[in-house]
């Protein structure tokens, strides 16, 4: 104790005799930085927001969900590590982006898909979706959707509409076709309550509209996702589905079916909102969201696929540079005047 005291006294004495000379640094401003926000925190937000979807997936699909989530997440992390090592880039698993890609890919696949589908999808997502463009922040397309498109083309039987039906499933809903397939092939409606709570078949993360809304609203409130994008998607789907309803009053699917059914809310809140592959300005985000919604309705109505969220997002991703160019904001006070000379 005494020793400690004398040490402290010595220290203060030293400070008093010599002017304390802390090492001063010169650096550009601003010298204040918000502590509320970091890229890691944003990634953690996405994982937190996915929890309700994962819970519903586990409840509905049981072991199928567990297997797919584990396979995709592990494969995505391994792929990130391997590609980074090949490119001699610093370790980047800590930023959480690879884990998010894995989880979102898993949630966009059927629980019945064999393990290698998830693994190959994850490698394609990280490799073709992200690394070939230069890594985090450089990719044009949503990596998880690139992975899903890859396996959808490579393994149509394992990921296509018919693959979803699992006759041996514990939950009765999973033994039936997905709501959109049922609609497309047999014109069968699914009750709104089933779509809302998630008591239907489908990709792992998409069945419950409620879970998507809870997670999605959290993301928007945290402002990790821009609310303009889901708002644009839902508005476009609402308007187009509404017009379709008006032209065909006997339609089995109403506006609410189209919004709550399929992967629409999952896509609107978790896939289309990927900041890297969506526009920068609020106006651009509205256009992007509305484009996704319109394409979803076009694909649902006219294409051979029952659902169109994946292709809608990928197509709109490709248009982002153009949307950014169209929506350069005008500065307060107008454009910079041309130099007088």
């Amino acid at each position: 104790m005494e020793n400690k005291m004398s040490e402290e006294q010595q220290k203060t004495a030293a400070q008093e005799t010599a002017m304390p000379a802390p090492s001063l640094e010169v650096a550009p401003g601003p010298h204040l930085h918000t502590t509320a926000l970091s890229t890691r925190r944003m990634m953690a937000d996405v994982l937190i927001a996915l929890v309700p979807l994962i819970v519903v997936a586990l409840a509905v699909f049981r072991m199928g969900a567990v297997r797919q989530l584990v396979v995709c997440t592990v494969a995505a992390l391994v792929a990130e590590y391997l590609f980074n090592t090949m490119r001699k880039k610093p370790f980047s698993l800590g930023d959480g982006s690879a884990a998010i890609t894995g989880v979102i890919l898993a949630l966009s696949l059927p629980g019945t898909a064999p393990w290698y589908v998830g693994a190959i999808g994850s490698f394609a997502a990280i490799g073709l979706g992200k690394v070939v463009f230069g890594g985090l922040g450089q990719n044009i397309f949503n990596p998880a959707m690139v992975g899903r498109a890859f396996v959808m083309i490579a393994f149509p039987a394992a990921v296509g509409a018919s693959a979803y039906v699992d006759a041996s499933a514990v939950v009765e809903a999973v033994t039936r076709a997905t709501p959109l397939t049922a609609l497309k092939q047999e014109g069968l409606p699914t009750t709104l309550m089933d779509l809302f709570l998630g008591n239907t078949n489908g990709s792992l993360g998409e069945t419950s509209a409620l879970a998507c809304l809870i997670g999605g609203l959290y993301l928007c409130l945290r402002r990790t996702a821009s609310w303009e994008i889901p708002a644009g998607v839902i508005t476009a789907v609402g308007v187009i589905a509404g017009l379709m309803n008006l032209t065909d009053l006997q339609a089995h699917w109403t506006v609410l079916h189209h919004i709550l059914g399929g992967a629409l809310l999952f896509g609107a809140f978790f896939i289309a909102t990927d900041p890297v592959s969506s526009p920068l300005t609020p106006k651009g985000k509205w256009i992007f969201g509305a484009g996704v919604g319109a394409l979803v309705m076009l694909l649902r109505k006219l294409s051979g696929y029952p659902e169109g969220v994946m292709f809608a997002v990928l197509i709109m991703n490709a248009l982002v540079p153009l949307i950014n160019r169209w929506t350069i904001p005008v500065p307060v006070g107008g454009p910079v005047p041309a130099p007088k000379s």
Partner: protein
Amino acid sequence: MSTAMQDRPGAKTFSRGIHPAENKELAEHQAIEVVPTPAEVLIPLLQHVGPPCNASVKAKDEVTVGSKIAASEAFISAPIHATIDGVVGRATVATLPNGRHVEAIPIKAGAQKNTPEEIKRDFLGGEWSTANLERFTSEQIVAAVREAGIVGQGGAGFPTSVKIAMNPKKPVDTVLVNGCECEPYLTADHRLMLESPASIITGALLCARASGADRILIAIEDNKPDAVAAMEKAATGTPIKIVVLKTKYPMGGEKQTILSSTGRIVPTGGLPLDVGVVVVNVATASAIARAVLRNKPLTHRIITVTGAGIRNPKNLLAPIGISYGELIEFCGGLTPEARRVVAGGPMMGFTIGNLATPVTKGTSGITVMTEDDLSSCAETACVRCGRCVDVCPVNLVPTKLALASRHQDWELAKRYHILACIECGCCGYSCPANIPLVQLIRMGKAKARE
């Protein structure tokens, strides 16, 4: 007159912007103290926008407080005065916080005629009568302000006489006195409004007389209710209106102040004059009153010395030319945790590496930041989250501007309006990836102008 010129009340706020921690409690209750006269001051000959002044004294000349020591014939200029009684030394070179090297004149202190109490009374106290100001013509006021060497004390350093002179091509209807002080930590303007509100009121009236404006507004953020009360009391019986604005950074930027208090939008690349407004800082208004009523030049200014890296934060009335180090020493010195000494506030201030740097007419504060205040996170990749877009008060896309600068794509930078940037730092403050947006954009602006 265009629609923008019509009298809209203003929304008391502007779009976007940020709310950083203010940390004003460190110094806001410290009454203004006069710094003891230093042994020497070093007075830079360029403290304004415009060409440098030429020295009119030589080594060994005796000078007293207020003697003119340098001036310039240029229209946009402001003469420079001795700030202590003493003897002129050999001219040398000073490095200003922005990195510019300028000629400077040292003055060695002799016996001082005025005591600190007298200096304080001369600057802040006494009578600031608003009666009979009609005896001054516009030309007389402008001449007195020019002679007194007054420049904008908010930091930009534009010669005030040029700003307030009548301009037949661009008539002015509003004088806006800026008491927002939106930079975190700084409290110099706040203390001045509390301790010498009458000088600000008189200065504002003189300003309106000089510029021909018939409306006078004093804009104050709502985080300073005591200053609002003091100014309202002092403004009783005058046509001056106090406008209370929402607290938000960068409210004190003149374009934001004008928009929030009058609803007028200054065109990009234009001046407040283009929308019929003259903006002066509260400290500038006070200096105008002192120049006209008391015939005294700008020799001292109020400087906040604050931050967690300062032992005893204070608001000081200090002679121009005193070193940053001496002001810090008078406030108990740096704490061992001090890491950055910032000239001005933390958002727009420059760090200085040499504490012998002299303070100038534009120095509003010294903020000393510690390790804890500073973000130690390394820069990571931009994920295009758009936070910078959400906070830019000018409505730019900072991440694109920074990218264009980094890739030296000046065409892209211009397409995204890089020259409209006011360098307020909102984007850098908000960036989750710690990208040095302001620094990159500043570089891009310099290149885009070429």
